[in-house]
């Protein structure tokens, strides 16, 4: 299967259990399989994009996935946008909505 596009939304932090990290790895696996993958980190999920938080974002970037970090969630947690790791980009919800409404995009929310 090739050509599908996925928007994966991770809303939970690493301390909620192992599923958040595994969800990011699912995105990396899809990207390695040739799918176009966007991963949005939102709510507590934004912590995965902080330095020292783990290697999930790095693995996604290495696999070719695009990693987005929700600006509002960062601000709500007093996390400066310039603190996110280089493999991730800070975006607003309008950008996410544009991707979500794209043809053939499949959305999975965790």
């Amino acid at each position, binding site marked *: 299967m090739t050509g599908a596009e996925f928007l994966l939304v991770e*809303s939970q932090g690493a301390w909620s259990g192992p599923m958040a990290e595994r969800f990011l790895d699912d995105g990396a696996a899809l990207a390695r399989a040739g799918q176009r993958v966007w991963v949005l980190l939102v709510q507590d999920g934004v912590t995965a994009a902080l330095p020292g938080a783990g290697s999930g974002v790095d693995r996604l970037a290495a696999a070719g996935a695009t990693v987005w970090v929700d600006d509002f*969630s960062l601000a709500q947690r007093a996390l400066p946008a310039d603190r996110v790791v280089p493999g991730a980009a800070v975006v607003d*919800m309008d950008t*996410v*909505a544009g991707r*979500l*409404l794209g043809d053939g995009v499949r959305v999975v929310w965790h």
Partner: protein
Amino acid sequence: MSIDVAPAAPARPRLRQWDLLLIVTGAPYSSDLLTTALRLAQAVLRRGGSVRIWACGYTTMVTQTPLGEVKPPNLQHPERPYPSMPTVVRQLLAGFPGRVGWIGCTACSGERGATHHIEEVRLRSPARFAATIAQSGRTVFIGGA
């Protein structure tokens, strides 16, 4: 030998299609889940899209009339009114007439005693869940059970 053939069923009217269906099930005050869902809905609406929100589980609690129009006073800013969730939903629906709908699940409402919703909420049985999904170009399920 003749075979009886049933008459063709009358064509069903084509139902309106919505761009996005957000099924929101999480407890509204346990995280910023509902805030995220509303932000996403607003962003889609700002882009000209149409959105339905199916409030399920504890999300059915947020449109109850006993919550009033404003939240209890914020002691740091007692002079400033903060809209209650029913007011936020009402403002969302009024802000994008015809392009956003709020559905309350009857079973989830009944189980929680949340039976007095603002009049803008359209109540639907879970038996219409699949039909509602079929009317949507894209469905996103947000939250736990």
